[in-house]
C-alpha cells in the first residue's frame, strides 16, 4: 500500500475516531479546545508509533499466548515516559489532560494497532502505520476541539474570533457538548460519504 493511500485511509475512510469509534474517552474528555485536542493527539501518536516500533521488532520473540499482556507492558512503558516528559516540559498541558495521560494505556486504538498490524508486519510498515493512524486520531481531535472551542468559548487556538459582545454557547465546552458535537460530526461524515457514493454511481 502506498504512503498516500495509507494516510488517506487513516484520515478519512478508516479514521480511528469518526469511523471506527476507537478511543472515545480521551476524544470526548479533552477536546474542550483545539489545543488540548492536538496535545492529546500527539501524545497518543508518540505512544502508538513507539509501541508499534517495539512490537514489530520483537514480534517473533513474543510468545503468542502472552502477547496481550506483553503489548500492554510495552504500551504502559511509553505512556509513563510521555507522562513524565510532559510533566517536565509542558506542565500546563499535563495538568489539563490530567487523568487521561495514564489512560492512554487503555486506548483501544493503540492495542488494536499492535494486535492487528504491528505484530504481523515489518518494522517500516508498522512505523508508517503508527504515524498515519496517530495523525488521523490527532486530526479528528483537532477538528472536534476546534468546533467546540469556537462555539463554546468563541476562540480558536486561544485567539478570540467572535466579537466580545456576542454570546457563546457554553454548553459546547461542557460534557453534553462533547457528545453532541461528535454526534453531528459523524452525521456530517455520513452525509459527505453519501454524496461521494452518489457521484460515483
Amino acid at each position, binding site marked *: 500500500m502506498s504512503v498516500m493511500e495509507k494516510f488517506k485511509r487513516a484520515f478519512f475512510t478508516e479514521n480511528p475516531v469518526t469511523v471506527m469509534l476507537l478511543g*472515545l474517552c480521551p476524544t470526548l474528555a479533552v477536546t474542550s479546545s483545539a489545543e488540548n485536542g492536538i496535545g492529546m493527539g500527539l501524545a497518543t501518536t508518540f505512544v502508538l508509533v513507539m509501541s508499534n516500533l517495539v512490537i514489530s521488532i520483537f514480534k517473533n520473540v513474543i510468545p503468542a499466548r502472552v502477547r496481550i499482556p506483553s503489548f500492554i*507492558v510495552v504500551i504502559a*512503558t511509553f505512556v509513563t515516559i510521555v507522562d513524565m516528559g510532559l510533566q517536565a516540559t509542558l506542565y500546563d498541558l499535563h495538568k489539563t489532560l490530567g487523568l487521561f495521560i*495514564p489512560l492512554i494505556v487503555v486506548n483501544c486504538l493503540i492495542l488494536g494497532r499492535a494486535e492487528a498490524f504491528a505484530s504481523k508486519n515489518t518494522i517500516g510498515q508498522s512505523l508508517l502505520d503508527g504515524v498515519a493512524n496517530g495523525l488521523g486520531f490527532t486530526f479528528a481531535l483537532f477538528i472536534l476541539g476546534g468546533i467546540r472551542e469556537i462555539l463554546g468559548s468563541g476562540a480558536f487556538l486561544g485567539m478570540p474570533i467572535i466579537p466580545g459582545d456576542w454570546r457563546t454557547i457554553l454548553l459546547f465546552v461542557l460534557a*453534553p457538548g462533547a*457528545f453532541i458535537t461528535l454526534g453531528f460530526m459523524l452525521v456530517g461524515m455520513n452525509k459527505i460519504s453519501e454524496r461521494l457514493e452518489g457521484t460515483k454511481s
Partner: protein
Amino acid sequence: MNEIFLLIVGAIFVNNVVFTKFLGICPYMGVSRKLDTALGMSMAVVFVMTLAGSITYIIQKYVLIPLDITYLQTIAFILVIASLVQFVEIVMKKVAPALFKALGIFLPLITTNCAILGVAILATQKLDTFVYAVIFSFASALGFGLALVIFSGIREALENREVPKVFAGSPIALIIAGILAMAFMGFSGMVK
C-alpha cells in the same frame, strides 16, 4: 456517616463516571444496544471495579509509596487489573458457573474499560482511607451501571423509530448520550 453518604451520591450522580468524567465510553457505546447485555455488563463492572479499586489502593499505599516507585503506577495498575480479570474469570468458572455464564463474555472486555483504571487512579489521588476507596469504587461502578442501563433502555425504544439515514446508528446514540449528560448536569452542585 454523612460523609460516606455524600461520597456515594457524589460518585453515582454528581460526578457520574460516564457523563462528567468521560470514562468507559467504549463499552458504554458498544454494549448498550440491548437491556440484557447492559445489565450483564453493569454487574460485571460493579464486581471488578470494586475489587480492582480495593486492590490497587492497597498496592499504591503499601508497595508503591513505601518503595518510592509511584512512577510505576500506570504499569502496576494495568497489570493488576488485567490479571485480576483473568483470576476472577477462573474462580467464577469454578465457584459460580451460573454467574460465569451470565457475566462471562463481558469479563475480557473489562480489561480495556478505562473506567476501571481511571477510578482506581482517582481513588488513590483523592481519598485517604481504604474504606473510602472501596466505597468510592463501588459507587462509581453503580453510576456507570445506571448510565448504561438508562441508555440501553432508550436505545431499545429507538429501534422501532424512524431515524433519518445519516443519523442512524452511532450519531443518534451520541446525541442521546449528550442529552442524558445534560440531564445529569442537573445534579451538579449538589455535592462538592
